[in-house]
C-alpha cells in the first residue's frame, strides 16, 4: 500500500519568505509526527498530532513555526520569515494510533534557505 508522502521533495527559498510543507500520512493512521533532521545532527522532534489536535507542540523551535492537520489526515507545517538556520530535511511520520509503537516515515522535504 501507499506509504507516507511529502511534498515538495525539495524547496529552495529566500530568507524572510514563508514556506509550507505538506505531509500525507498512511490512510487510516490517526497519529502524525513532524521531525527535523539537520546536517550532522539527529532527528529533532517538532510536533505531534492525534487526529486534528496537537497534544505536544514542545519541539517547535520558535513562534515562526506552526502546523495544522485537517480532517484527521493531511498536515501542513508552515515556517514564516524563514532563516538560514531553518535549512534542514523535514520528516513526517505516521502511526495507526497514538500508542502504536512503530512510526512510518516519509521521504522528507529538503528545505534550503538562501
Amino acid at each position, binding site marked *: 500500500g501507499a506509504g507516507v508522502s511529502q511534498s515538495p521533495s525539495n524547496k529552495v527559498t529566500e530568507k524572510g519568505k514563508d514556506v509550507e510543507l505538506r505531509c500525507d500520512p498512511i490512510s487510516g493512521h490517526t497519529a502524525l509526527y513532524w521531525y527535523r533532521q539537520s546536517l550532522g545532527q*539527529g532527528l529533532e522532534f517538532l510536533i*505531534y498530532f492525534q487526529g486534528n489536535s496537537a497534544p*505536544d507542540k514542545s519541539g517547535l523551535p520558535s513562534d515562526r513555526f506552526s502546523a495544522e492537520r485537517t480532517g484527521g489526515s493531511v498536515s501542513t507545517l508552515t515556517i514564516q520569515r524563514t532563516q538560514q538556520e531553518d535549512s534542514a530535511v523535514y520528516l513526517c511520520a505516521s502511526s495507526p494510533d497514538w*500508542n502504536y509503537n512503530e*512510526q512510518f*516515515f516519509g*521521504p522528507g522535504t529538503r528545505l534550503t534557505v538562501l
Partner: protein
Amino acid sequence: AQSVAQPEDQVNVAEGNPLTVKCTYSVSGNPYLFWYVQYPNRGLQFLLKYITGDNLVKGSYGFEAEFNKSQTSFHLKKPSALVSDSALYFCAVRVGSSNFGNEKLTFGTGTRLTIIP
C-alpha cells in the same frame, strides 16, 4: 527528559564480519527502544523494537539488538555484514507507557555504517 547516545559517528566493517552499532539511552521509567535505518535520499525505515519480554529482539534484514537494562544499552548487531547494509542507523527511545502523552521519540545523532567489500 530522555536522551540517546550513539558514540560512534562512523563504523567500518569488512563484508562477512559481524557488526555492532552502539546505543545507550536515558529515560525516566521503562524504555521503548527502536532502531531505524536511512538509505541515501530515502526516509527512515523501521528495523526493530524492544517493548518488553526477551532482551534479544530480531528484526528486518537479519539485524538483532540486545536490551541491557543495567548498562542502559541497546546495541544493534548482525552476524555477517553485507555491502547493502551500508547506511545511516538511528537509535531512538520513548517512555514506555500506555498513558497518552508519551509518544515522542528521541533519536540519537546516527551512526554511518560502511561495509567494505
